[in-house]
């Protein structure tokens, strides 16, 4: 229990105040800025890794794709043990008739692969043969155990192209029509297998079915490419705005003042200058994956150069290049154009939707977002001090930015490369300058984007 003495000491000491030197705050400020910067870098790295991991996971495990593979896998699993009986080998047509889902699957496969008409003319013939051959080696899951007389009657004699396939010209090019008990093989490729002995097919169903597997894998292929975008950027006052920062209250500063205490403008106040767009560009690498016939996702690593132009007066400091972030300042008199450079590292993640889906020339709509980190800048910040000045203080600029992107592009696709060109825009969602006076807040970029993607060579 505190006695009077302790109470007296406490009350007396409560009034003790010692004024710290100015260095203390400078050191505190420096340390918390450093710490904030470190946390941002860490956050940026973590965000990037998570984003890339999620993108990769999403691309690989999208429902449509995994369903496709699992369907094929399930057909294989179910059919493989029973295909050892030779009578099933002749029932390819019937079986395919009874597997509408499988035919549907093949159609989906074709569409998803984005096979062009030129490519499909020969490739589809083979596909249809392969599919029919593989069907010939398979059994329906619902099929009774090879014992129905109907199936037995078709044994070794009848091949009929199923009606489903006949509706599909691309799949109707196969020569598998046999009704006279003899093998009429138009294609020498098929004669090696079918003509020799149907039982040969049924003895190796796994091998035959697995012919379809590389087709499926082709859909999963990644493309890598180069992305270059040239355009212009400016800093807007509001998010999602194409309008630069306007200073309606600038006149309040520009009125002549009675102040005659020196300064760069001899007594007149100058408001912040308007800002203009400047040349900007983006360049980097991207990876792309087609997740369906119509859609694909892209992720990458880009270097982004953005810029903005303002008007400033004469430099008020002789030691601009001394390295101090706050040493250089310029009068706000609108005499010279000053280009502010911003260097970012950006991790974009975007979704492309194409139309039409089965063509090697098509349009796409793009939407996405990106995280970017401001690596360095020479930008100036306006302040009303000293009759209006622009000064350097990098601590006032937000390092970590999030952007919304959009655009459209025209694509020309060949067997190994894909070229795309089109307009692109991105809105910054993060405030750039932490200043109450300087109203420039959000970056806007508009440009013409060019992408070239390369397919990985097929090792087949």
């Amino acid at each position: 229990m505190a006695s009077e003495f302790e109470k007296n000491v406490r009350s007396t000491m409560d009034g003790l105040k010692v004024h710290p030197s100015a260095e203390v705050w400078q050191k505190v400020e420096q340390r918390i800025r450093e710490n904030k910067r470190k946390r941002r870098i860490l956050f940026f790295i973590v965000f990037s890794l998570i984003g890339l991991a999620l993108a990769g996971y999403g691309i690989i495990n999208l429902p449509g794709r995994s369903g496709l593979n699992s369907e094929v896998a399930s057909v294989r699993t179910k059919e493989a043990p029973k295909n050892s009986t030779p009578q099933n080998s002749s029932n390819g047509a019937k079986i395919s008739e009874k597997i509408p889902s499988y035919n549907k699957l093949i159609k989906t496969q074709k569409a998803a692969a984005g096979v062009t008409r030129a490519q499909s003319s020969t490739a589809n013939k083979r596909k249809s043969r392969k599919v029919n051959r593989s069907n010939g080696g398979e059994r329906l899951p619902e099929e009774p155990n090879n014992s129905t007389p109907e199936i037995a009657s078709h044994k070794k004699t009848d091949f009929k192209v199923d009606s489903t396939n006949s509706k599909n010209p691309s799949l109707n090019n196969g020569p598998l029509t046999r009704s006279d008990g003899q093998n009429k093989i138009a294609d020498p490729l098929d004669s090696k297998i079918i003509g020799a002995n149907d039982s040969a097919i049924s003895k190796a169903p796994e091998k035959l079915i697995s012919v379809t597997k590389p087709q499926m894998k082709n859909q999963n292929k990644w493309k890598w490419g180069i992305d270059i975008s040239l355009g212009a950027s400016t800093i807007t006052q509001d998010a999602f705005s194409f309008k630069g920062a306007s200073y309606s209250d600038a006149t309040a500063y520009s009125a002549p003042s009675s102040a005659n205490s020196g300064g760069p403008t001899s007594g007149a106040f100058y408001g912040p200058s308007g800002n203009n767009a400047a040349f900007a560009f983006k360049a980097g690498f991207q990876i792309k994956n087609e997740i369906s016939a119509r859609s694909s996702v892209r992720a990458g690593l880009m270097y982004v150069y953005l810029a903005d132009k303002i008007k400033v007066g004469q430099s008020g400091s002789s030691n601009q290049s001394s390295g101090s972030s706050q040493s250089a300042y310029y009068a706000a008199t609108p005499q010279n154009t000053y280009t502010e450079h911003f260097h970012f590292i950006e991790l974009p993640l975007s979704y492309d939707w194409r139309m039409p889906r089965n063509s090697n020339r098509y349009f796409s709509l793009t939407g996405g977002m990106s995280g970017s980190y401001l690596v360095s800048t020479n930008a100036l910040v306006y302040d009303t001090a000293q009759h209006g000045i622009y000064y350097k203080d990098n601590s006032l600029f937000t390092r970590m930015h999030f952007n919304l992107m959009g655009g459209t592009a025209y694509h020309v696709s060949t067997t190994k490369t894909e070229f795309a060109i089109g307009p692109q825009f991105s809105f910054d969602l993060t405030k750039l300058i932490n200043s109450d006076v300087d109203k420039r807040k959000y970056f806007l970029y508009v440009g013409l984007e060019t992408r070239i993607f390369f397919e990985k060579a097929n090792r087949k």
Partner: protein
Amino acid sequence: MDHYKLLKDCIKSKPNAQRQLYELFADTMLGVCYRYTKSVKDAEDVLQEGFIKVFLSLKQYRHEGELGAWIRRIMVTTALNFLKRNRNYREQMYFPPEHLHPVIYDDPVIMLEAKELAELIRQLPPGYQTIFNLHAIEGYSHVEIGELLGITDGTSRSQYARARALLISWLENYPVANKTENYGK
């Protein structure tokens, strides 16, 4: 600007708000740090470390007590860590287990200015100084002090009694014009 808004802005890392918070508490907190150290420079080092901790852990402040008290606790903890870490203080921060020192129940009225009293407290040996600060001014119990310094509560009591007696003897001999009228009640 109320503390809530100020804190909110500080958490958003707004430089102006951070500066404002610092200026609001810097003088008082340097007074706290000053009592635990032997030089202004050391006190400023503690203040600097303490404010860095304050800014980095503002999100943990639950608005349950006064902001000043919360910052003060951080400063005290920072000061204790500084004393343990700094060689000049660490060597003198040894607390030998001692028998209880008889407590002098004098309650002299203190007519000194805060600065003068602080100077007297700072002249105590570092161990005494720390325990006196913690118990008499910060209001920590001897059990809490024992936990903070890694000593027994008995040792803390003993050290405090000695520090108190020494300080009172100094106060009684302090050249204040009217001290005889107020001391020794």
